């Protein structure tokens, strides 16, 4: 198990390098769009453009550019943004807390509601609650998340004259109440689609488990409902749930972009969108590399957790 984890960890730099190479060269394809043109105005002369190109290091051959970039990265320097010439790392760190909070809250809500609804609906199969929750699941998977978020802006202001705050990140440590008022309602809505899917997966996994002989044994031993359903039941249904939670976190990268867009929150999602639109290469390279590392680390954690949940699974 430990060896397996170490071997997987050893792959990380390799894949990170591969991702970086692909990103670097795709971005610099002749047809991919020239950052200098995006930064030019009507008054920019050709000489200005040439000077700018030189300043940004874009005049060198791509392979040389890559060598320089790689050298800097290995020393922990991720370069400066093309626009504004600020250190990429500083700009990222400034926006990081907002996006992290969006993802953590939304994933938390997804798992909380998805698993609870799924268990209830499986244990009370064909009851009124089960029926209602299944209807929720069908609708939850059909409504676009950005539509729900827009409704959060539009409807409360019509019905209760309450307008949800737009923009302006407040640190949760400075002003917890304002922070939660800003983030809880939208992340709750962002979790609707995910929890609908998670509910369906949990429900079918639980139904499978509930039919097993050991569940009858557990009940026959006189165990309480909680012990039977959670310790014996849910624990054995966890594998598909964990897999889905991992996939959902990756999907939340997109969700965070949408949420930040609707509520004008200056997070990493917005940063990625604007940098991509302006071909701000250093920012895009950093964010692609970063997200690849996060996702790979996450997959490793998910895979290792299988062995913790089910001792029959062994890695060697």
């Amino acid at each position, binding site marked *: 198990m430990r060896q397996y984890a170490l071997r997987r960890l050893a792959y990380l730099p390799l894949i990170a390098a591969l991702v970086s190479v692909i990103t670097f060269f*795709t971005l610099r394809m002749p047809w991919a769009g020239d950052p200098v043109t995006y930064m030019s105005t009507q008054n920019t002369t050709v000489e200005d453009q040439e000077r700018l190109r030189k300043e940004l290091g874009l005049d060198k051959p791509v392979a040389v550019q890559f060598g320089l970039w790689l050298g800097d990265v290995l020393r922990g320097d991720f370069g400066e943004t093309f626009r504004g010439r600020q250190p990429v790392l500083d700009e990222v760190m400034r926006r990081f807390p907002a996006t992290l909070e969006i993802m953590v809250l939304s994933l938390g809500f997804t798992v909380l509601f998805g698993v609870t609804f799924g268990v209830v609906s499986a244990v009370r199969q064909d009851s009124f609650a089960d029926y209602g929750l299944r209807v929720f699941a069908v609708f939850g998977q059909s409504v676009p998340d950005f539509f729900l978020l827009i409704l959060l802006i539009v409807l409360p202001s019509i019905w209760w004259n309450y307008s949800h705050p737009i923009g302006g990140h407040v640190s949760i440590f400075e002003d917890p109440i304002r922070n939660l008022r800003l983030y809880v309602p939208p992340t709750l809505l962002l979790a609707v689609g995910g929890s609908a899917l998670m509910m369906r997966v949990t429900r079918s996994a639980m139904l499978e488990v509930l039919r097993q002989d050991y569940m009858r044994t557990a009940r026959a031993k006189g165990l309480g409902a909680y012990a039977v359903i959670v310790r014996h039941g849910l624990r054995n249904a966890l594998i598909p749930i964990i897999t889905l939670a991992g996939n959902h976190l990756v999907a939340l990268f997109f969700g965070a972009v949408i949420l930040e867009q609707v509520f004008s929150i200056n997070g990493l999602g917005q940063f990625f969108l604007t940098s991509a639109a302006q071909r701000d290469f250093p920012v895009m390279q950093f964010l692609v590399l970063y*997200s690849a590392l996060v*996702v790979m680390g996450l997959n490793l954690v998910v895979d290792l957790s299988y062995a913790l949940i089910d001792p029959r699974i062994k890695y060697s």
Partner: protein
Amino acid sequence: MATAAESLRSFDTVPRERPRLVRLARLARQHPTGVFGLVVIAGFVVLGIFGPAIAPYDPRELRTGGVLEGPSRAHPFGTNALGQDVLSRVIAGARISLIISFSAVFIGGSIGSFLGIVSGYYGRWVDYLIQRSGEAWAAFPSIVFYFMLITAFGQGVKTIIIAIAIGALFGGSRVLRGATMVEARSTYVEAARALGASEARIFFRHVLPNVLPLTVVLMSTSLGGAILAESALAFLGIGVEPGTPSWGIDMSGENLTVARLGYWHVVVFPGLAISLVVLGANLLGDALRDIWDPRLRR
């Protein structure tokens, strides 16, 4: 004692296969939500094809009435900030959504099915290659992947279709791979092999006809997701060209700004249109999957 003739006659009491229409009607009664989905998707297709002819106004025409009028008899869904008729834009928006979602699902679904069948039947390195690429793709945040495609192919309808098709492709290949593996290892295939049937005969006569209908199920189940993906990209302004009547675009930019000021009808109706069509696609997909193979239900 029963004679041979009598026992032959008793076969008559076995109900004969009912006419096709009767069987369809019965299927419809068993899956009312599926019928609802089918009706919605049929409506979606009709609007996508004939939309501009049906719409009361030209979707791009400015000042069809007042600006930002609420729903009224002349404008059932109201007008937007440019005075365009929202109902006409919702109707016309079906087209781009239809084109993108259907082509993406068709392309991705058929390539994915092909790869899945090959990978499930042939196995070995082909299987390894396809499955590992699928995992690598799933591990990559979709928005990052999409931007790589934009830089490679440029922004436009083609790129959106490719992006969504790749998603459908890997999802589909997994399902068909599993189904093919089950069929290839079943007893009747073993029996055919024992009778001396060639590999090609086994594949084309026995395995393929049993897994191919799954392709249709697969395409219908990925349709909802494709429509959602297209509208989300349009909403972010990285999808179809600005100005195209598109549900996602109509819920962003200027329209979103005025919606924040209380003009809800501008964004709510396109949003309802997406939700309804995706709901229809999901219900239809679920019903088709149940009919084809109840074991796949989840």
